[in-house]
């Protein structure tokens, strides 16, 4: 069994330092890896990222993250990345990592993702340049996520995003803002590989559980949704993905 801990949208700044630490000290007894689903900082400064590094660094298990929209706000992404990687946190954006857990290879592919909406109610690459750029951005990152997932050579495959790949886990959010919360293109990318679990954040008023059309379990781990320091998902070693070879 592989035990995956995950949380997103922790929005760390100096005023939050130490809040997660007591629960994190217990994490190695409960989980083999920690996934951080974006919005690690309050508004994306290097100083805040150093607070994230202090809070989530040195846990004794691998910590794997994607950035969120908040982490981009102050245009300090290189400094944010440096602060996190200096603390041993792996940050994914269109790439992947394989972690050995007692002989089982856990593969995690990640992207921040972007919006656009969901099948039947989504934005199209049509019209003004700004609109086309918006939709093209999501298409590009979704393609990178799909390629990273398909290229993984591992036993258990997990997709990590900030934006949501399905509308199921947005239940509780106003319908009007769904196009800003995620995109079906991320779900399609997840279904293009035999993915075992997809984890995202971003939707603070959403709900925990959903599935892609291909049957991959999706979990929204935004901190205000899970209302605990992190959630833990136990995945069986011999798990067979429902989306494997589904052709979606």
């Amino acid at each position, binding site marked *: 069994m592989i035990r995956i801990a995950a949380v997103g949208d922790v929005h760390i700044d100096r005023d939050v330092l130490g809040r997660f630490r007591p629960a994190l000290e217990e*994490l190695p007894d409960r989980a083999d890896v920690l996934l951080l689903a974006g919005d690690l900082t309050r508004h994306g400064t290097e100083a805040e990222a150093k607070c994230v590094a202090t809070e989530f660094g040195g846990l004794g298990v691998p910590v794997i993250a994607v950035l969120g929209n908040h982490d981009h706000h102050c245009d300090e992404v290189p400094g944010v990345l440096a602060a996190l990687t200096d603390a041993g946190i792996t940050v994914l954006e269109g790439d992947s990592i394989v972690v050995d857990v007692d002989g089982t290879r856990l593969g995690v592919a990640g992207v921040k993702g972007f919006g656009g909406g969901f099948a039947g109610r989504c934005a199209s690459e049509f019209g003004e340049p700004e609109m086309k750029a918006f939709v093209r951005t999501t298409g590009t990152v979704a393609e990178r996520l799909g390629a990273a997932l398909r290229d993984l050579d591992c036993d258990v495959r997990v997709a990590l995003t900030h934006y949501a790949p399905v509308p199921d886990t947005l239940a509780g959010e106003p319908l009007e803002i769904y196009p800003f919360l995620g995109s079906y293109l991320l779900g399609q990318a997840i279904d293009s590989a035999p993915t075992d*679990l997809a984890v995202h954040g971003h939707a*603070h008023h959403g709900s925990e559980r959903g599935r892609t059309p291909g049957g991959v*379990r999706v979990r929204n781990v935004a901190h*205000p949704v899970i209302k605990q320091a*992190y959630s*833990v998902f136990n995945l069986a070693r011999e*798990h067979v993905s429902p989306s494997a070879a589904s052709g979606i």
Partner: protein
Amino acid sequence: MNDYTEAEVQRALAEDLGIAEQGISVVRAGAGLVLCGEVESPHRRDEIVRLVHERFPGIEITADIGVTRAAAPTEAEELA
């Protein structure tokens, strides 16, 4: 308060760098506004109320904002 106040408050909460909160609902109730949601610290809750009072004087504010719990989980989800 007018028909655009809710939108102005919501944008102020997101765009003010001392706040940067997108997860707070702003709902008009009678002559005032109700602010709902969760933040990561009591300080952030206080700052939200302070900013809205400062930028929108005279509007009655009811803050129903919680601080998200950060305890260790009591159980894991089995995904067999």
